[in-house]
């Protein structure tokens, strides 16, 4: 494992801010893996730590293929993690809204530019991203529908689902979009959680990356074949909103198959404890996402379901 400096800058009070990358193997730029970009992405950093350990072992065993290099960048935003902030510590900007970046711009823009410059030539890119809604989701691979995405390649991760989505307004300034625009096959891996550690889904994320690297001939690793992924379009997921505001009492969690009309959750009046609303499944299917805050606003998306899907 070789440690390198991806980006470095001085700060007003905290001293030097240095981003490190860790490379395994030598040769062609085969795959690059990027971890936490926000200060609350503990699970994403945790996955990277597990992956670093595994890749080190594989390298020591001579199981990184000849002329193949893997670069792992565990975090771009460790100061925010230390300060318990989500976005950039100095100005609340978001690194994953700063791509392609500008080497003469603001700090997050410089980080984005430096990162992209270093990682743009890799054949495959993996980012451990956090779901845009707060809660738990079924682990999946997400790809933007840029016209350059390859669903068949995404299937090689062996995750339960591959989710494709149309570009939202902010997607054009994300790493994934710009990585794809520069010719890298870029994938976002979503683990079950963000702000809490979930070992089971972390291990699934690690295995999925190792499986992909094996199938692309980048490492030699005997692993389970994983899932034959089911491909979904994001627009096809059914959003279920809270009809009322109040305490959220979850009755059904993610990855559960439910029948139409089944009670998924209850909204409790925080003043008198009465049930203000029972949240019913609008369709048969599988729960893909469930929010995990103790209280919810009215109209908040609390569940997303895969319509008419069975285990």
């Amino acid at each position, binding site marked *: 494992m070789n440690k390198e400096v991806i980006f470095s800058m*001085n700060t007003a009070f905290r001293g030097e801010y240095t981003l490190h990358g860790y490379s395994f193997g030598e040769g062609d730029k085969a795959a690059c893996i990027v971890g936490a970009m926000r200060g609350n992405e503990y699970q994403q950093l945790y996955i990277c730590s597990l992956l670093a350990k595994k890749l080190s072992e594989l390298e020591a065993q001579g199981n990184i293929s000849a002329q193949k290099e893997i670069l792992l960048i565990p975090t771009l935003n460790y100061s925010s993690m230390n300060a318990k902030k989500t976005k950039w510590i100095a100005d609340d900007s978001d690194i994953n809204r700063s791509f392609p970046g500008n080497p003469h*711009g603001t*700090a997050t823009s410089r980080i984005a530019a430096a990162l992209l410059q270093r990682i743009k030539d890799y054949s495959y890119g993996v980012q451990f991203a956090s779901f845009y809604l707060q809660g738990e989701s079924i682990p999946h691979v997400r790809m933007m529908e840029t016209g350059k995405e390859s669903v068949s390649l995404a299937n090689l991760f062996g995750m339960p689902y591959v989710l494709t989505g149309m570009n939202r307004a*902010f997607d*054009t300034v994300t790493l994934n979009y710009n990585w794809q625009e520069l010719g890298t096959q870029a994938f976002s891996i979503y683990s079950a959680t963000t702000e809490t550690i979930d070992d089971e889904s972390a291990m699934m994320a690690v295995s999925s990356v190792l499986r992909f690297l094996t199938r692309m001939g980048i490492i030699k690793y005997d692993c389970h074949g994983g899932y034959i992924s089911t491909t979904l379009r994001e627009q096809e997921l059914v959003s279920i909103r809270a009809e009322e505001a109040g305490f959220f009492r979850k009755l059904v969690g993610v990855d559960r198959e439910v029948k139409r009309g089944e009670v998924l959750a209850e909204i409790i009046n925080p003043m008198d404890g009465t049930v203000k609303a029972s949240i019913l499944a609008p369709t048969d299917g599988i729960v893909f996402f469930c929010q995990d805050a103790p209280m919810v606003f009215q109209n908040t998306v609390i569940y997303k379901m895969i319509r008419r899907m069975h285990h």
Partner: protein
Amino acid sequence: MIETVVSVDLMVEEELKVKKNRLAPDFPNGNEKRICIVSGLYGDELQGQYICYEVIRRIKSNYDKLKGIVDVYPSVNVMGLDSRTREIPGSGMDMNTLFPGSKSGALGEYTASCIFGDICGADVCIDLHASNVYIHEVPQVRMNDDCVDKVMPFAKHMNVDMVWIHPSTSVQNGSLAYSLNNAGVASMVIESGVAFRIQKQYCEQIVDGLFSLMKYMGIWDGDAVDAKEGIVTDDSRISYINAESSGIFIPDVSVYDTVTKGTQIGTIVNVLTGSVEEVVCANNDGMICSLRDYPVIEEGSLLARIVGDINHE
């Protein structure tokens, strides 16, 4: 007439209500032009609060001069304004990336959808901003480069010091202005001052501009100033000065100052060693149109912008 545009139950006891004040002639003929004035998309930008107040006050004091419809939405990110939070509290979403919104979306998208729907059909919308906490801006209009022909005739009446054709986030895809322009409502963003403050002089200048615009549109029949002819520029005439050191920025100039290339803009000092880390100089001739207000900076922080070719006077 006060109307509720959005109403959503919050988690405990409260209800989020976005309200507007509709000011319309007592005896409408059905052909009135309509202008919408929106403020408070960011909870830390307060200039619009005074501007909305002053617009309504001036109209009420000469109500017979009102010939069109003025819809004033003073505080669209209600919880952000109350909690001194720029984004939507809780989700942390930037409200000005959620338009046109979605009735089936989360709180922010739902609120955006209701506001957007309510404004649609207007002739003009003015989205009042106030920079952020870091940068002091001279009063200016911002518009995207794909709506110049439609918006510029209105922008020239806004009595601002600068009209900047600039695809910034405040006017790009997802913003209120962008979405409304796509929907046929000529829309622009006004930036001025700095967050968390009301700079009355700037506010009065913009209010004068709003009345000048309303007079041009046939909405106002009372007195209005002749709008000043601000600098009209695109990105090619704007120079950025970013810090190459970290520390505390001590400015030596003010906004509106005219500088030449090499003029000292300020210094970046190290408060631990008592040394000057960097002397910051102008990289072009022109007028300081943006200047760092928050003194703590890091490498890359924007310190100033200069707009060049200011011989319009």
